[in-house]
C-alpha cells in the first residue's frame, strides 16, 4: 500500500514538474514580454523553491487587416527573443510567491529597404505574484484551484535607440507599473492524474510610462489538456485567447493597436530526473480579429524551458 501511494506521489510530482506551461511572448509587437502568460499558480509545495528558465523566440512579421492576412511587400522581419527567469517559493501549503525577471531582445529589418536592421536589448519588466491555492490535485482530490494577485514592475530599459529613441514596441520594457489578477483551475480525469484539463486566466492593466504611453489592459484565457505519456514524458495541447485594448498615448487610443487573438498551443516535457525537466512549446495563431486597418502580429513562437525543484 505504501509503495503504491509512493508511486502515485512520484507520478504526480513528475506531472507537476514536467507540466511546464511555458512562457509565450506577446502576440503583438509590443514592448517586452506579455508576462501575463508566464505563471503557474498551483504547482508548488511548501518550503520548496521552483526555478525555471524560459527562452522564447517570436516571429512578429505577419501583416493582418482585421481578420485577414495581408501580403507584406516591405519584406519586414520582426523578431523578439525573451529570456525569463522565474522563481516560485511555497511559503505554506497554500500560499506561494512567484517572481519573474526578463531580458528582451528585439530586431526589425525592412527587406525592401537599404537601411540596416534595428536592434534593441535589455532588461525587461519584472513580475511578482502572490498566489493562494484553495485546492490541489492529490490522489484523493481531483480538483485544483488557485488565485493570484500580481504586480508588474518597470525594472527594465525603455529608452533604447540612438540618436532617436525607438517606439514602444521595440523597447525591452513597458516602463510602467501594472497589476494583474490570476486564476487557475485543474481537473484530473483519472485517479493517477495522467489526464488533466486546465483553465488559466488573468486580467492585467498597465499605467503610462514617462512618455505618456500605456499598453492599457488585456485579459487572457487558456484551456487545454495535459497527458502523461510515461513517467518521463508529458504533453499538453490547448487554446489560448487574448483580448487587448488599444494602446494609449496621453490617454488617446492609438489606431491599429489591440484586438483579439486565438492561438493553439502544444508542448512536450521530459523529466530528466525527479526534480528537473525540460520542455518545448509551440504556439501558432488559429484566428484573430485585430483593431484598425493594419497590424503586424505574431506568426508563431517557440519556447524552450528548463525547470528544477529545490527542497
Amino acid at each position, binding site marked *: 500500500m505504501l509503495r503504491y501511494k509512493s508511486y502515485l506521489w512520484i507520478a504526480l510530482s513528475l506531472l507537476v514538474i514536467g507540466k511546464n506551461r511555458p512562457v509565450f511572448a506577446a502576440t503583438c509587437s509590443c514592448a517586452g514580454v506579455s508576462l501575463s502568460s508566464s505563471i503557474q499558480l498551483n504547482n508548488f509545495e511548501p518550503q520548496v523553491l521552483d526555478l525555471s*528558465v524560459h527562452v522564447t523566440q517570436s516571429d512578429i512579421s505577419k501583416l493582418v487587416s482585421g481578420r485577414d492576412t495581408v501580403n507584406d511587400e516591405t519584406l519586414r522581419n520582426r523578431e523578439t527573443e525573451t529570456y525569463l527567469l522565474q522563481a516560485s517559493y511555497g511559503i505554506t501549503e497554500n500560499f506561494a510567491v512567484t517572481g519573474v525577471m526578463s*531580458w528582451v531582445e528585439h530586431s526589425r529589418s*525592412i527587406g525592401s*529597404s537599404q537601411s540596416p536592421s534595428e536592434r534593441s536589448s535589455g*532588461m525587461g519588466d519584472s513580475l511578482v505574484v502572490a498566489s493562494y491555492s484553495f485546492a490541489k490535485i492529490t490522489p484523493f482530490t481531483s480538483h485544483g484551484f488557485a488565485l493570484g494577485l500580481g504586480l508588474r514592475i518597470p525594472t527594465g530599459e525603455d529608452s533604447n535607440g540612438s540618436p532617436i529613441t525607438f*517606439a514602444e514596441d521595440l523597447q525591452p520594457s513597458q516602463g510602467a507599473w501594472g497589476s494583474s489578477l490570476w486564476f487557475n483551475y485543474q481537473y484530473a480525469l483519472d485517479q493517477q492524474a495522467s489526464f488533466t484539463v486546465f483553465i488559466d486566466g488573468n486580467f492585467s492593466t498597465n499605467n503610462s510610462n514617462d512618455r505618456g504611453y500605456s499598453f492599457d489592459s488585456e485579459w487572457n484565457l487558456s484551456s487545454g489538456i495535459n497527458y502523461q505519456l510515461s513517467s518521463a514524458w508529458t504533453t499538453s495541447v490547448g487554446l489560448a485567447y487574448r483580448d487587448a485594448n488599444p494602446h494609449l498615448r496621453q490617454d488617446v487610443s492609438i*489606431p491599429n493597436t489591440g484586438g483579439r487573438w486565438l492561438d493553439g498551443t502544444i508542448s512536450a516535457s521530459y523529466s530528466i530526473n525527479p526534480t528537473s525537466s525540460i520542455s518545448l512549446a509551440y504556439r501558432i495563431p488559429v484566428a484573430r480579429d485585430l483593431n484598425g486597418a493594419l497590424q503586424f502580429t505574431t506568426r508563431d513562437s517557440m519556447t524552450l524551458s528548463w525547470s528544477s525543484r529545490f527542497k
Partner: protein
Amino acid sequence: MRFLTVLAILFVFTACGGGGGGSDSDSPPPQQATWLINSDQVVDGGPGKDGIPSIDNPTFINGDQATYLIDSDLVIGYLVNGAARAVPHAIVDWHEVVNLQENGDSAVLSYCPLTGTAALWDAPASSTNKEFGVSGLLYNSNLILYDRETDSNWSQMLQQSVNGELIRQTATVQTVIETTWLTWRTMYPETLVLSDNTGFSRDYQTYPYGSFRTDSNLLFQVANEDARLHPKERVLGILNGGLNKVYPIDQFSAGVQVINEAISNESFVVIGSSDLDIAIAYNSTASDGTLLQFTAIESSLPIVMQDNEGNQWDIFGKAVSGPRENEQLARISDFTAYWFAWVAFFPSADIHSF
C-alpha cells in the same frame, strides 16, 4: 549539484546580450547626430525606416478609369508642363511619398496624413539617386522624409533638410492644389490620376488612422498647441516675410472668393472656396513690379480671377488671357495643413476674419 544548477542559470542570464542592454550596435557617424531641430522632439513613429513603403514606380491612368474615387475624395493636383496630374489622399494616406519621373525630371510628392500637408519638391539636382523615402521619424507629428542619395532627413513642413549631409539645404517647392476629385476633374478633365494598382496590398478604400481626420485628438505630442480653432480644421497657412497667417478653408464663401492682402509690406492674393474645397495664394506683384488687384471669376474653372488690367488668371497663378498672357505670379510660402500642425510649427498665427 544544486549550486551548479543555480550557477548555470545565472550564467545564461548574464551571457545574454553581453551583460548590458543597448540598441543597434552601429552608432551614427558624428555628423548624423547633428539636427537643425530639437532632436528630443524627433520621435520614432513606429513603422521604421521604409516601413511605410513609398511608391517608386507610379502608374497614372485616365481620370475616367479611376473608379475607386468618389467626387468628394481629396486629391493633390499639380501640372507637368501644363498637363494635369492628381494623387489621391486615399493612396498617399498609406504611402506618404511618391517618387515621380516625367520627361526626364524627377520630383517627390509627399503627403503626411497626420498633419494634412502635401508638398511637391524637385529632386536635388546633384543627386544620382533622386528618390526619397519615409524615414519613420516624426517632428511635431509631421513626416520626416529621407533622400536615398545621402540618407539626409528632411522636415516636410519646414521644407528643409534638418539632418545629415545635406543639412540646411532647402527644398525646391512646386505648386500643388489640394481639392476634391470633382473640383480637380472639373478644372482639368483630361487629368491623369495615380492608379490604385500600386504593387502593394492595401485597401485604399479604408483610411488607416481611424477617426483621426475629424476628432480632436493628437497621436503625437507637438511643441505648441492652440485652441482657437478645432485641431483638424484645414487651413491655408501663409508664411511671407514676417507674416504668419491662416485662412480656414471652410470659412471661404461657397463660390470663388479672392482676398487682396497687403500686410507688413507684403502683397499677396488669396483664392479660396469652401464648396470647391480649395485655397491657394500668390504674390500679387507682377514680374515687372506692378501691384495687381484681383476680383473673383465664378464658374470658369480653372480660371478663378481677373486683375485690374483685365488679365484673367487660373488657379495655378498663370495669366491665360490679356496683356500679361502666360505670365506667372510668383509663389509665396503657403500650404494647406491641419490647424494644430500649423501652429505647432508656426506659433501665434493670425487667423483671417472673413
